């Protein structure tokens, strides 16, 4: 089980959280202007790296706030936790 360091509550067990998938997805400002392929790219296509992955988590059984996690999908090691609206920090592996 992962131990996740909630930016507001501190380290808690994974069961208190829900994973929200890839972080930093931005809804297109003008969806009407997009082609079907561009809309599909926003809606369905996802990064799925073997290695560092920025993803969203929500502390659903705690403070119920969303935040970002930088995690290695090969090892599950959490490299950084940072708040919504922030960019992923530079970290050494």
């Amino acid at each position: 089980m992962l131990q996740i360091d909630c930016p507001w509550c501190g380290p808690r067990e994974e069961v208190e959280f829900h994973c929200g998938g890839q972080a930093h997805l931005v809804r297109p400002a003008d969806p009407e202007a997009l082609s079907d392929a561009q809309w599909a790219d926003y809606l369905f296509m996802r990064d799925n790296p073997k290695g560092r992955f920025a993803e969203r988590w929500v502390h659903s059984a705690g403070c119920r706030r969303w935040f970002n996690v930088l995690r290695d999908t090969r090892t599950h090691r959490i490299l950084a936790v940072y708040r919504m609206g922030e960019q992923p920090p530079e970290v050494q592996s």
Partner: protein
Amino acid sequence: MQRYSAWALARNALSNHRNWPRQWRSPEPKRHYDVIIVGAGGHGLATAYYLARNHGINNVAVLEKGWLGGGNVGRNTTIVRSNYLLDESAALYEHALKLWETLSRDLNYNVMYSPRGVLNLAHNLSDVRAGRRRAESNRLNGIDSHWLEPEEVKKLCPILNTSNSLRYPVLGSTFQPRGGTARHDAVAWGYARAADALGVDIIQNCEVTSIRRESGAVSGVETTRGFIGANKVGLVAAGHSSVLAEMAGFRLPLQSHSLQALVSEPVKPVLDTVVMSGAIHVYVSQSDKGDLVIGAGIDSYNSYAQRGSFQVIEGQMAALTELFPIFARLRMVRTWGGVVDVSPDASPIIGKTPLGGLFINCGWGTGGFKATPGSGWVFAWTIANGEPHAINAPFSLERFTTGALIDEHGAAAVAH
């Protein structure tokens, strides 16, 4: 290839079974093939076999980064069924099930396909409605599926707790008699041996590191054992499909997750059918060796680690002991994980890619094993003809652009 038979068994007994021939070669890769298949799992090996047998394309290499059958084909819970709701899925999975029925004979290899029946339990009103609807839909598609009331379920599986003491009692079940299990390793080995006999080169410990492109089409793959050329390449890499697609310059609508499973200590025959519960989420069957094979859902976060979090195992154990109080004191001996490629509509992607000559077969998520023969059959057809077969045409990558999704969530009978 030496045929396996009762006669061969008797003859080899005379020499204490020391002189059985090897089942497949370990050849050095050639410089060029007509077709390269990336991934020597069940689907990849089946593709190579049907390319050679059905389409006369024998100059084929199957590249495997690890060992043959070491990925999901050796990590699944061996359940075979075709009771999917939608017409497109029913056609695909039923095509596979028909191939399962004669597979041992076709491959001259005992894949131990055992049509012991599959129950999909209903625990609430919406389960009952969905189950009845699915059984009717299956019958319209010529699939042997029907609805059972709780007392009929009890008759079929006496050790199942069908009393009202359950928090979510068994309110009925769908039943597909032709569903069942097959020996997963034997499927990989049987396809490997049969494909090898038809001239296919199976090259293990050969990881694809990049995909070479020339004027908008694929021209081969760079591997840890050097460059291998081919004008047609099929990617059948399950959880690693996104990694390969990135090498070829496009993205897939997939997320890789860990799917865990476990087995108990072996016990005498106690469960002669497959029981699945999507609602309280566990499925179980008993292998011929006697151990219970148990599975459920994926871990929530993306992973390439082939392992997961323990609370997922705890959750399915709670569901198992609720449904089968008799299993409460059984010891579990082994758990493991596989990397599954989950698609947005819980349906696979089988067809062409944006790169010419490059084909992909992925997105099977948590339920690819049952489709192995059919998946290889339609993918071989697609590679040989350069166009999808009518059965897999709806499962194109373009469906995410056109919006013609094949939404099998829930209807696929297990939660994802």
